[in-house]
C-alpha cells in the first residue's frame, strides 16, 4: 500500500521541481526517412519498406517537410535553430524497432534554448525549453496470450511496424523550479500551451488521447534551501488533466517517502488513468547504454539563415496573442475566456461567428447547452454531431423569434440525433414559436378565465403576477409561444 501525504502537508515541507518531455507525432504524408504512407488505421504492416526494416542496402533520406515542421515548432517556442545538426543512432534491442536502433538526435539537436510563458491564477511562469529534436516513432506491439492483454502474463507479442518511422518531435524542458503549490497547474498549462502552439502551426493533430502527443512528467522534491531531489519520470499520461493529476500524485507519494526517511528511486513510473496513481515501470538492472553514434547514412543538415527566416516569417499568430485578440473582439471577461479555453471552444466559437452568429450567441450555446451535452456523454465538445454553421443557424432562428430557448434545445436534440440541420428538425418536429396572434389571444383568454384571482391582481397593477398566466399559456401552447409576446397580450387585455 503506497503511503501518501495530503497535498497541503507535502507543500508545507517540500518544494517541487518539474520537468516535461513531450513527444509529438507529425502529420506528414510520409515517414521520416522513406516514402511509406502514414495513413492511420491501415492494415498491419502494409506501410513498411526496406528502409523501415533497415534491410541491407536500404538508404534513408530525411523528409524535408518534417525537418521544416520541427524548425517551425522550435521557432514558435523561441528556440535557436542549429547552424549545423545531424542525426544519431540510439542503439537498443527491443522488438518495437526492427532496425535495432532508433534514428534520433543526440548532441546536436535541431533547436535549442527556447521558452514558453504560461499564466496560472493570473501569475506568469516561464518554462524554459532545453531542446527540440527530430526522431522516428516506434512500432506498435500487441501482447497476446495473457488474460488482460498486458505484458505480464502474455505469452507472445505481435508487432506492427506501420508506425515505426513516423516523424516524432521531442521537446524537453529545462528543470522548472519555483512553482510551489501550483506545480500541477503549471505542468498542465505548459502542456496545453504547447499543444495549442503546435496545433496552430498545423503540423500535428496533437491529440493526447490518441497518442499523437505524449507527455512524460518529471517531478522531484527538496526541502527549502536544499539541493534538488532525485526525480521520477512518469509515462503513460494520456490527457492534459492527467498531467496535472500525475504531478499531484508524485508530490504526495514522494513527500511521504521523504518524511519517513526513505530515498526516492530514480525510476520510470507508469500513470494509471482510472486510479490516478503511478506505479514503478521498467526495472533497470543496468544503466541505459544506448551507445549513440552519428548516423552515417544521413547527411548533416545546415539550415541556412534564409531558410530559417522564411520559416519564421511564415509562423501564424501565437495562440496566446490570438486568444487576447478574440477575447477583446468577443467582449468576454477573463474568467469567461478561461472557460472557453478550458472547454476547447475557441475554434468552435470562432467558426460559429464566421458563419454569421453574434459573439454572445455563439459563446452562449457552446459554453452552455452544448458543453452540458458533451459532459453528459463524456465526449469532447468538438466531437458533438453539430457544426458551428448549424449553431449559427439555430441562433439566427432564435433571434428571428422563430424559436425560443426551450424549442431551440429540442432542435439541438434533433440535430444531435442526426435528423438534419436546425431548420429541417424544426419543420419535421413542428417546433416553431406560435406567431398566430389569434391563437395566442384565445390561449390568453382561457388562462384569464381559469385564473380569475391572478387576473384581478394584474388589473390592480401587480404586473409581476403575469408570470402565472404566461406559464399557463406556455403550457397550453406546449412551449411554442414567445413569452414576451404573451406577456404583452396579457397586459394589453388587463389594463
Amino acid at each position, binding site marked *: 500500500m503506497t503511503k501518501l501525504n495530503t497535498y497541503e502537508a507535502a507543500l508545507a515541507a517540500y518544494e517541487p521541481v518539474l520537468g516535461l518531455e513531450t513527444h509529438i507525432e507529425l502529420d*506528414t*504524408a*510520409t515517414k521520416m526517412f*522513406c*516514402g*511509406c*504512407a502514414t495513413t492511420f488505421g491501415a*492494415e*498491419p*504492416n*502494409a*506501410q*513498411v*519498406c*526496406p528502409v523501415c*526494416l533497415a*534491410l541491407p542496402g536500404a538508404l534513408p*533520406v*530525411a*523528409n*524535408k*517537410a*518534417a*525537418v521544416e515542421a520541427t524548425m517551425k515548432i522550435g521557432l514558435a517556442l523561441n528556440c535557436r535553430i542549429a547552424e549545423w545538426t*545531424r542525426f544519431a543512432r540510439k*542503439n537498443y*534491442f*527491443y*522488438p518495437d524497432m*526492427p532496425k535495432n536502433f532508433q534514428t534520433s538526435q543526440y548532441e546536436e539537436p535541431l533547436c535549442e534554448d527556447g521558452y514558453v510563458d504560461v499564466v496560472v491564477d493570473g501569475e506568469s511562469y516561464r518554462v524554459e525549453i532545453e531542446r527540440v529534436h527530430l526522431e522516428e516513432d516506434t512500432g506498435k*506491439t*500487441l*501482447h497476446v*496470450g495473457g488474460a488482460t492483454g*498486458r*505484458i*505480464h502474463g*502474455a*505469452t*507472445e*507479442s*505481435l*508487432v*506492427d*511496424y506501420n508506425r515505426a518511422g513516423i516523424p516524432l518531435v521531442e521537446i524537453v524542458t529545462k528543470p522548472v523550479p519555483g512553482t510551489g503549490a501550483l506545480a500541477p497547474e503549471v505542468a498542465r498549462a505548459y502542456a496545453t500551451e504547447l499543444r495549442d502552439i503546435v496545433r496552430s502551426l498545423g503540423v500535428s493533430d496533437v491529440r493526447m488521447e490518441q497518442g499523437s502527443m505524449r507527455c512524460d512528467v518529471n517531478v522531484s522534491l527538496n526541502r527549502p534551501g536544499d539541493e534538488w531531489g532525485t526525480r521520477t519520470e512518469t509515462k503513460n499520461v494520456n490527457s492534459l488533466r492527467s498531467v496535472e493529476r500525475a504531478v499531484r500524485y508524485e508530490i504526495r507519494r514522494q513527500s511521504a517517502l521523504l518524511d519517513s526517511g526513505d530515498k526516492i528511486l530514480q525510476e520510470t513510473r*507508469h500513470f494509471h488513468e482510472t486510479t490516478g496513481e503511478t506505479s514503478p*515501470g*521498467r*526495472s533497470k538492472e*543496468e544503466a541505459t*547504454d544506448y*551507445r549513440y553514434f*552519428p548516423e*552515417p547514412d*544521413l*547527411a*548533416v*543538415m*545546415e*539550415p541556412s539563415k534564409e531558410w530559417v527566416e522564411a520559416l519564421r516569417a511564415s509562423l501564424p499568430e501565437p495562440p496566446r496573442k490570438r486568444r487576447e485578440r478574440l477575447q477583446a473582439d468577443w467582449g468576454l471577461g477573463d474568467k469567461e475566456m478561461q472557460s472557453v479555453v478550458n472547454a476547447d471552444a475557441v475554434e468552435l466559437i470562432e467558426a460559429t461567428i464566421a458563419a454569421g452568429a453574434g459573439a454572445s450567441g455563439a459563446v452562449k450555446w457552446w459554453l452552455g447547452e452544448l458543453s452540458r451535452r458533451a459532459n453528459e456523454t463524456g465526449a469532447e465538445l468538438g466531437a458533438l454531431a453539430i457544426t458551428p454553421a448549424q449553431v449559427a443557424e439555430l441562433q439566427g432562428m432564435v433571434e428571428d423569434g422563430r424559436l425560443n430557448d426551450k424549442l431551440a434545445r429540442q432542435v439541438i436534440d434533433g440535430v444531435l440525433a442526426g435528423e438534419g440541420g436546425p431548420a429541417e428538425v424544426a419543420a419535421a418536429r413542428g417546433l416553431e414559436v406560435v406567431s398566430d396572434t389569434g391563437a395566442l389571444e384565445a390561449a390568453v383568454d382561457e388562462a384569464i378565465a381559469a385564473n380569475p384571482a391572478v387576473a384581478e391582481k394584474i388589473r390592480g397593477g401587480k404586473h409581476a403576477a403575469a408570470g402565472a398566466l404566461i406559464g399557463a399559456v406556455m403550457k397550453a401552447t406546449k412551449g411554442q409561444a414567445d413569452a414576451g409576446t404573451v406577456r404583452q397580450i396579457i397586459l394589453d387585455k388587463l389594463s
Partner: protein
Amino acid sequence: MSTISREEVAHLARLARLEVTDDELDAFAGQLDVILESMKTLGEVDTDGVQPTSHAVPLVNVFREDRPQPSLPRDAVLAGGPDTAEDRFRVPRILDEEA
C-alpha cells in the same frame, strides 16, 4: 593482461543480445584488446583544430519531398521475420517492461 575486462565483454554481449561462453569471454577480451591497441595508434596523429568526421562525403541538406511511394507488399515484409501471426511479426513475450 587485458585492459578490457571479462565483465566489460559480458556487458557488451548482453547489450548486443549475444550469448557468450566463459571461454569466449576470455578470448574476446584478448581480441578486443588488440583492436583497441591498434586504434590507439590513431591517437598519435595530431588532430588539433580538425573537426571530427562522421561522414566520408561532404554532402549536406539531402532531403526528399513529402510524397508517398509504394511500400513493400506485406508478404515480402513478413517474409523477413522468423514467425508471424495476424499479419504481424510474432516475437517471444517481452518480460522486463510493463506497458
